[in-house]
């Protein structure tokens, strides 16, 4: 029983950071129609922000995390302005550009921080016990931050004029521009949010993983599976799929092993694709 409960707590953490990454990826895809292959590298850059600001320059942890969000968000804006905007009618070109960008980010990380792992000391070693399951503050931060950020995003998208514009662009860019919504402005904000979420996920989890310049690969494969399960165009789907995948993966790892967990994860993806090619929450008509 204890093991079950502890596993559920473990899974909640995994779901939190995966949801941040997947929502960012979906957001970029939704508005720009581009699969951002460099998304894992944005996570990596976020993690290295914490390596640099918190571990090397000893700024406060939360400040470093915030800086990670903003900095990676701006990296996103740079990507939008220099690559995705000129390539708006060329989604495959956007894909290739993001691959090129990924190579550049990896190499820059190697130049700046070396090819071996970065080190981030824990910001706190405190932990709480929830009905016998241990949850460290470091992990709790991630869970709380993910919930707050996603809730804020949700409110932003539902309530603000901008949110409507964003959703309008995601549904039909042409119609949106006819309604006087600026595609450039919307894309910039979407890219900032999408990249920033990946960056903040990397920043928050930096003390818990060991960031290397090549960690993005592990991240993007998982994120891919999640957005396929959730339905590529759906933010809600991304969150729910992240939770689903994290729980399945964590429980199978705990009760069988990690390799079997990956097989189950892929099988889940395949099953969803066969039964519902557009994902659990994807729009049907797009298929």
């Amino acid at each position, binding site marked *: 029983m204890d093991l079950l409960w502890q596993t559920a707590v473990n899974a909640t953490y995994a779901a939190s950071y995966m949801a941040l990454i997947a929502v960012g990826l979906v957001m970029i895809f939704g508005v720009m129609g581009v699969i951002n292959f460099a998304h894992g590298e944005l996570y990596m850059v976020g993690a290295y922000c914490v390596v640099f600001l918190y571990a090397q320059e000893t700024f406060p942890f939360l400040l470093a995390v915030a800086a990670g969000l903003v900095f990676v968000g701006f990296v996103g804006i740079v990507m939008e302005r220099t690559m995705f905007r000129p390539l708006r009618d060329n989604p495959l070109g956007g894909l290739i550009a993001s691959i090129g960008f990924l*190579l550049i980010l990896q190499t820059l990380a190697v130049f700046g921080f070396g090819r071996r792992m970065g080190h981030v000391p824990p910001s706190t070693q405190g932990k709480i016990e929830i009905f016998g399951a241990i949850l460290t503050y470091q992990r709790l931060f991630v869970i709380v931050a993910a919930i707050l950020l996603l809730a804020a995003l949700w409110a932003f998208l539902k309530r603000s004029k901008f949110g409507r514009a964003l959703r309008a662009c995601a549904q039909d860019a042409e119609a949106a521009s006819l309604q006087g919504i600026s595609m450039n402005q919307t894309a910039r904000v979407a890219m900032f949010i999408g990249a920033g979420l990946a960056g903040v996920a990397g920043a928050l989890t930096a003390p818990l993983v060991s960031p290397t310049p090549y960690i993005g690969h592990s991240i993007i494969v998982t994120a891919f*599976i999640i957005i396929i399960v959730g339905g590529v165009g759906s933010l809600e789907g991304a969150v729910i799929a992240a939770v689903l995948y994290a729980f399945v993966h964590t429980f199978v790892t705990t009760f069988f092993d990690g390799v079997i967990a990956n097989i189950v994860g892929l099988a889940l993806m395949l099953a969803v694709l*066969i039964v519902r090619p557009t994902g659990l929450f994807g729009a049907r008509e797009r298929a």
Partner: protein
Amino acid sequence: MQAAGTGGLVRRTAWRLRLVFLFAMLAALPYLLSYSQQEIAVLLVINVLLVCSYRLLTLTGEWSLGHVVIMGVGAYASALLAKQFGVPVPLSMLLGGCMAAATAALLSFPLFRMKGFYFLIGSFAAGEIIRLIWKRFTDPFGGPKGLKRIDPFPDIEASFLSVDFYEPVNYYFLALAVVSVSLFVLYRIERSRIGLTFHAIHWQDRLAESVGVDTFRYRTLAFVIASFFAGIAGGLYAHYVGAVNPTRFSVDQMVYVLVWAIVGGTATFHGPILGVVVLTVINEIVLRALGLDTARPLIYGAILILSVLYLPNGLESLGPRLQARWRRWRGGPAAAGREPA
């Protein structure tokens, strides 16, 4: 599509002359290269087949992320047939291609329920599952380490002729022969009604359906043909390098195929070939020769971005563009006025 009259005859003759010239160049090429560049040339020729077969699939408008895995199916099948069952290597390569085609035929049932972006990710999922099978079932696939000591292409030992396919020059000619025949077949397919139908499905699949084109069947056909030739490329690779493993056919490698195709351009038959040749020469020869060492991926990445930004229609569009500029320059302002911009 059909050339007619004397103009056609002249054009056809010119075309044939160009082809003869091209083959003469290709035949002379290895003798102008250093030994290690010959090795690069062998892999390049194999990759040309890979990317050209990929283009055939994209004619129907579908982009796959599983093409390299399919190449791996051919490579694994050919290697296992040769190693475990003693099938002679040329035959095993052919069977490897068939195995890849059969895998594609099987995969088409779930995959062609999807279109466009969903097909892209669906093919990724299917590919990952195949790779997982290779990793998981150590017998016969060798697990994460894969297969090694794969039988080489048998040497020719006749009284008058002795060809050792370990030598890259010889393997280059073998690969060149196989790839030329394959490309000819791919070219014929595209120029036939089948190719017309593929294009038709790409541009207006509902209209094609309405005049009796079974789009599912034709998409499957494109997928199967493309996969067959990818499998052949896999066989050529496996028996040259002598080793295959699941990492060699991962999505990272697939990304390169995608990059070659898009940077080269897919509107013409030669576009992807240009892409793979130019990018390989840049990455494997120029950047290495410049001693860029660890900065190589950075420069390569920058080249990718710049090329899609400034050559959105691929390298294939560079020729006609330069030609137009040349003509304008040569014809002077008067001629330029006559030509539509």
